[in-house]
């Protein structure tokens, strides 16, 4: 299987504080990987560094064979844009554009990038809104949507650019519990369609059911990784056990 993402010895520090300590992992094409771990363990920072939303201080990142970070330095600006364009990202707080309708949110970037005709763009935005179950909300502004609907729009917006890889940064953490289901269903469907994805999440049941592989991060390090059953049923590390027992009590 070909590697979509290869991360080696990734490091990030602020002064004495090490946010990421020699983090290494590979993601294969079509793989759905869940990243779990306590708050402040570096999960989000690791994910955000894959699309240059964070600076790093050491290590390397290779996306689909192309180097994005070498020796702790991002490649030049134009290359960053080209390499990260194969990745879509969904944020905890949706980050929809409030001044644009749902359709406007989906179509803004493809229209600016001008890689295809307006007709193709509008057709795809219609298809994707149906896919996430929001066809009837096309002309509504985000202010009128529930959290779950906003996040589904955000997922459709990320899909508009036909990404090879989707990154989810705690996609359900800002939602009321009764709204997480509708978002998780969409992500699950994408996983079943073999979208390559990394999902940073606190939803343990979702990680167990949907992920092909689970990565456990603590204190800036990947301390354990394996299949869901290895991590959830037979964790090898004490830290993983402590974390999972705390989570299951919630």
């Amino acid at each position: 299987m070909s590697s979509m993402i290869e991360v080696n010895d990734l490091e990030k520090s602020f002064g004495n504080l090490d946010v990421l300590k020699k983090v290494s992992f590979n993601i294969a094409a079509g793989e759905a990987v869940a990243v779990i771990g306590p708050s402040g363990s570096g999960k989000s920072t690791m994910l955000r560094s894959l699309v240059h939303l964070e600076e790093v201080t050491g290590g390397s990142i290779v996306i689909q064979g192309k180097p994005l970070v070498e020796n702790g330095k991002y490649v030049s600006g134009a290359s960053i844009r080209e390499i990260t364009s194969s990745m879509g990202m969904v944020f905890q707080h949706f980050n929809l554009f409030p001044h644009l309708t749902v359709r406007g949110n989906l179509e803004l970037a493809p229209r600016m990038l001008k890689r295809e005709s307006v007709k193709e763009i509008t057709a795809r935005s219609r298809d994707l809104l149906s896919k996430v179950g929001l066809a009837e909300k096309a002309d509504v502004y985000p202010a009128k949507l529930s959290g779950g609907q906003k996040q589904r729009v955000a997922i459709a917006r990320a899909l508009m650019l036909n990404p090879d890889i989707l990154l989810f940064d705690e996609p359900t953490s800002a939602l009321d519990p009764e709204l997480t289901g509708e978002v998780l269903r969409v992500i699950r469907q994408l996983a079943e369609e073999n979208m390559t994805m990394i999902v940073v999440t606190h939803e343990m049941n979702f990680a167990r059911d949907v992920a092909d592989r689970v990565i456990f991060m603590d204190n800036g390090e990947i301390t354990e990784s394996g299949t869901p059953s290895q991590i959830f049923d037979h964790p090898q590390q004490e830290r993983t056990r402590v974390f999972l027992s705390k989570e299951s009590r919630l």
Partner: protein
Amino acid sequence: MDYIIQISGPMLEGARTTVLLFLIVILVSIPLGFLVTLMAKSVIKPLAWIAHTYIYVMRGTPLLLQLLFFCFGLPQIPVIGQYLVMDRFVAASLGFILNYGAYFAEIFRGGMLSIDKGQHEAAKVLGLSKWQTLRKVILAQMFRVALPAVANESISLVKDTALLYAVAVPELLNYAKTAVNRDFTVTPFVVAGVIYLLMTLVLTLFFKALEKRFKFE
């Protein structure tokens, strides 16, 4: 009643100067203010420094002083002063533009600050350039946030045009004062007040409509 109609003619003539000044200042100082906001946020330090100094000076001194300076001060400067003699209306317009530009710059800067950094991040991950992000994501939201403050500032400007009186450019208030002195009656002041109220009413309705149009709901 006849008297009111009789003085209304010249007073509306004066109001024309007021409206003309208002339009010139609004149309130039809003883009100027936006430019200064961008300069103030620039990574090129001297540009940011110039913008901040400009804002500080224009906000920190009285508008009346600035008008007197442009109309009567500039020509007094040794050597170059003789080249700076301008029509007083032009000189006053310049003073107003520079003063209001500084206030608009601060209003827009506040609007920019209110925009969540998640908006920049989403735009970046979607592959928009900095310039595309500014144009398509940041500007629209900034103007929406700034709109009430811009409306407020515009209404202030209508009233501040009366400062032209101090540099002897004939406008609405000037005509009213002349009529009061000539005819020994307070009526022209009342008429002038009503004309100012009408102008601010138009602005108020205009900005209300704009706010409604850009509610994004």
